[in-house]
Structures are given as C-alpha cells and as structure tokens.
C-alpha cells in the first residue's frame, strides 16, 4: 500500500532526464556511447547470448531512473543532486556490459 500511495507519474521527467544524460556533461559522452553500443548490438548480429549481458544493464538503469519519473523524487531530478548519484551507482556494471558487447560486435565483423 505504501508503494501505491507514493506512485505519481511525471511525464515531464523524460525531457529533464534527456538533458541530464546527454547535454549537461556530468557524465561527458558516456551515455551517448552506451546508447550507440546497445543499438549496434541489436542491429548487428552478435552472439546469441547478448541478452544475458543486456538484461542486467537495462534493468539496473531502468530502476535507477524510475523513482524520478514515478514518484515524488521528481523534485530531486530538478535539483540534479540525487539523480547523478543514482546514475553513478549503475555506471561500472553498464561499462562492464558495454565492453563485452563491443568486443563481441568487433569479433563478429
């Protein structure tokens, strides 16, 4: 019940998130690179087990940004403090996955 009461949808959060990820520079070009690698891994055929690596990266990224879209934590998205720390927690695993996908893409060429 506590969770249901705290849910509130903030569609405007998507635009703010895009700004944070791609234009504000806290993570430089990291997220642009991640998106490119994930897209390439889907467009080009790499080994069949890519979902084994992609699922953790996508879920961990999704859960780290979801409070800012679906709860009162949207206000912290506006102030830019907590969102950068939340994204920071996910960075090592996402880089780990992207390096594996990049290598497999390179080998499959």
């Amino acid at each position, binding site marked *: 019940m*506590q969770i249901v009461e705290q849910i509130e949808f903030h569609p405007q959060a998507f635009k703010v998130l895009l700004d944070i990820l791609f234009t504000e520079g806290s993570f430089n070009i990291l997220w642009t690179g991640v998106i490119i690698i994930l897209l390439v891994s889907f467009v080009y055929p790499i080994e069949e087990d890519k979902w084994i690596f992609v*699922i*953790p990266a996508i879920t961990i990224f999704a*859960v780290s940004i979801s409070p800012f879209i679906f709860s009162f934590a949207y206000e912290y998205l506006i102030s830019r403090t907590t969102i950068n720390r939340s994204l920071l927690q996910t960075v*090592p695993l996402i880089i780990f996955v992207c390096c594996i996908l*990049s*290598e497999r893409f390179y080998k499959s060429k």
Partner: protein
Amino acid sequence: MFFNAIVIPPIFDDAITCWSYKAKVIYFNKSIEMNPDNPLFLGGAYSLYPLAPSLFRVWIALIMGGWHEGYIQLHSLIILVSLLLLIFINLKEYTSFFMRVLSCYLIISVPLFSTHAYAGYADIILSCYITICFILLMKWYFTKENNILIIAAASMAMAIFTKNEGLVLYLPAALITFSYYCYKVAMKLDEKVKAVSLYILTLCIVAGPWIVFKIVYNIPLW
C-alpha cells in the same frame, strides 16, 4: 584522489550528517543505542538509513585505534580501486586486455567517481556491491556453480544493508535478472529450484535480520 582523501574532511551533506555522524556516535559511545526513544538510536540521525557505511568507518577506526578523519575517508578510494580491479579481473573471461584497460579508464574518467573517492558518500560502496552481484550472476549463468550464486546473493544483501536503494531498487533488478537467467540456463528443474532456494536463503540470512529489525522497531523500510 589519494591526497584529497587524506586531507579533505567530509564536506558533503549526507556524508557529515548521516554516515560520519552515525559512525562517530557509535565509535565514541562504544555501542549502538537500541532504545528508539533515545535521540542516539542507531547512531542518531536518519534511523531508517542502513548502518553498513557507518559501521565500516567504525571498523576502520577500531583497527587503527583512534578516529583519524583522513584515513577513515580513505576507505572510499580503496573501494574504488577494488571496483576497478573487480571489473578488470572479471572482464578477462569475456574481452581482450585492451578492452579491460579501456573499461577501467572509462570508469575512472567519470568525474563523479573521482569525487566520490573522497566524498564520504555511500554510493560508491553500493555501486561496488551491486556490480559484484550482477557480475557474479552472469558468471553463474555460464558456470552453473552455486557457490558463485551464494556470493552474488550475499553481495546483494550487503547492498540492502548499505543503502535503502538496495532494497527497493536493485533487489528487484537482481531478481528480474536472476529469473531470466533461471529461465534460460541449461539446467534441470530440480537444479534450478536448488539454485533459487540458495539465492533466496542467502538473501534472507544476510539481509533478513536488518529488515526484521526495521519491522519490529517500526522503522520505515525506505
């Protein structure tokens, strides 16, 4: 980063008012206050915050025989180096040497990481635990060794005891990933049941006491 870690005291909000404050209260009182009516309950401020980052500092202070701010702050840097080593070593099974070096470079090049190496926040500790958990889950998928799964579950449980995000955000993510791996992994049904039981059991043994404690003392879970 090393210089900053040993010279600059905690200057960020949560680092001062929560993690270091709780640690100092516990260290100088030589115990954890368990009376909810006492203002120093669980080390004082923010009783709903888990204790692991503060206890980590207390542990370092106890080993050193005194509270030395600079050396205690150094733990974040040590965790960052451990995280880099973790990535570098575990990528060996999947990628070339060049890619392993590149991955470490990419992590360390994120400015926030170098700041958190001395900021005194708990995010870098949480990041380390969840990275260990997910990397070991991947490793379990390929090796099917249950001891790896137990360490992955223990790591996730430690993430729960490090920050509340571990419970409400990263535990569901780990369970989704583990469910998918269980669905895809080439194992017999009874082996899958055993693996799931081991994972849940380890989570309950390591993180259960903290969650039960919160429920018993009527502390919000997040």
